[in-house]
């Protein structure tokens, strides 16, 4: 399978402080990949580097073989990377449907309708809530809107930043069920998660991320049964940080 997303030894951070160190990673077309790690490991920074929210201090990001260089975020989205950012970044004073429509603001009326129908098929709940103001929705509903809005850009690759944060376990289950549906429909998915259990049960392959480095890459099922990682499923204090450090 051809690589859709390739990170070649990328580094970067904030104000001269490097958070992500020479990370190499790839996501093949049609694959579902998770990067799991403790809070503060640099997962969000990694995604911000991929999306051009932060400048790279080294390395390259390739999408469909093309070096993204210094392209701004919106250009990357237009190339086909759907982005579900940390904290959801919804338009809180707009309705669910308005949020979704802005995701497809460049589409024709017919395309827009088609996209909306698809989103409502994946998230039937959103159809009932389509007139509701996003600010008033529950966390799970808001997360569905964010995923839906990213899908409206008709991405080839969907990137999600900690989609389970702040959600009840049952809601996390529903969300990942929807991601399974999307993935089986042919969408390539890359998710970073602190909730390693949920993400690795969904993904085919997993990267373990510690202190800004990739320390392991393995099939998700193998990582799921790793006793060291298993500690993190029950939510003990920073189990990742206690493992062996950079490999």
């Amino acid at each position, binding site marked *: 399978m051809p690589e859709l997303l390739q990170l070649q030894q990328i580094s970067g951070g904030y104000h001269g402080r490097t958070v992500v160190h020479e990370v190499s990673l790839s996501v093949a077309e049609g694959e579902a990949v998770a990067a799991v790690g403790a809070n503060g490991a640099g997962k969000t920074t990694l995604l911000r580097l991929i999306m051009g929210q932060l400048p790279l201090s080294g390395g390259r990001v390739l999408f469909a073989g093309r070096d993204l260089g210094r392209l701004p975020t919106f250009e990357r*989205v*237009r190339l086909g990377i759907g982005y579900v*950012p940390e904290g959801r970044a*919804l*338009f809180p*004073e*707009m309705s669910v449907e308005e949020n979704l429509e802005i995701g497809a603001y460049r589409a024709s009326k017919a395309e827009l309708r088609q996209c909306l129908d698809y989103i409502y098929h994946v998230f039937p709940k959103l159809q009932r809530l389509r007139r509701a103001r996003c600010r008033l929705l529950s966390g799970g509903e808001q997360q569905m809107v964010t995923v839906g809005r990213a899908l409206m*850009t008709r991405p080839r690759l969907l990137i999600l930043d900690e989609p389970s944060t702040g959600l009840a376990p049952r809601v996390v289950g529903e969300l990942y069920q929807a991601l399974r549906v999307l993935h089986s429909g042919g969408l390539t998915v890359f998710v970073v998660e602190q909730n390693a259990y949920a993400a690795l049960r969904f993904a085919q392959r997993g990267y373990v991320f510690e202190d800004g480095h990739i320390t392991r890459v393995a099939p998700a099922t193998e990582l799921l049964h790793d006793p060291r990682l298993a500690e993190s499923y029950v939510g003990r204090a920073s189990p990742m940080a206690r493992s062996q450090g950079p490999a």
Partner: protein
Amino acid sequence: MLQLQTYLLLLLTGIMWGGVYLLMALGLNLIYGVMKVVNLAHGDFIVVAGLLAVTLYGAFQAGPVLAIPLAALLFLLVGLAVYRGLLARVDTAGPQGELRTLLITFGLSSIISNIALLIWGGQYQSVPFFQSSVRLGSLFLPESLIISSLVAFVLAFAVQFWLIRTRWGRLVRATAQSELGAASCGLNTSRIRLLTFALGAALAGAAGALTVVLIPVQAASGGFVTVQAFTLIALGGLGNYLGALLAAILLGVIEVSSSYFLGASAASAMIYLIFILVLIVRPQGLLGQRGRI
């Protein structure tokens, strides 16, 4: 009976003045709402537009009907230039970013007001248009106030309509509510910011060319106008449109009635007294999040 009429006149005049103040704050509110930038040169845009209208009147006897669109167009271009040349070149993210934009627009304000001082001198000037009074029963209202407030309310409504009903307006609101969200929908947010800043500057231009028939200005009045406009939008909840409308009417009525009962100097004290009270009781503004664009 006479008293009732007095109250009615005070209320009506207050609402009208509120409309004028709203117009003078419209551009500032739009720019803050979308960009989180307080344009400290806003008042200078208004003042220079007013002085231009004075010059136009002096040279061609041209009234506000010509001066308003000209000033709006001119300041649209000024807005584009200021954004492209200054604001787009600095990192505006984070708390440091806010300080940077304040410094830049403050510097711009000094430059503009000093150039204006060189061109127009320091005297107060006005455009003697719409100078008659209109009789409403036994009440008399100055024509300049009626026309200014009507245009002001129409413009405020037009901006609101544009923001809510049109495609571009919607994209502007989306960017105001979440810039990251807008970018992740594929929106070129820096173009939206450019458009917003230019539009906010054009609104300041239009406001200046209109209100100069009512409020005489001189080159250095800009700072005071900015403070007044900022007070209004802070009272309404920064970036909040409905709140600004409410605050404008409140300020207008308070100012007019307190200057009637207590004298003109007490009026401006009353306004800031109310402002401080609102900041203490409702720091998020009269309406807070409700009615945000």
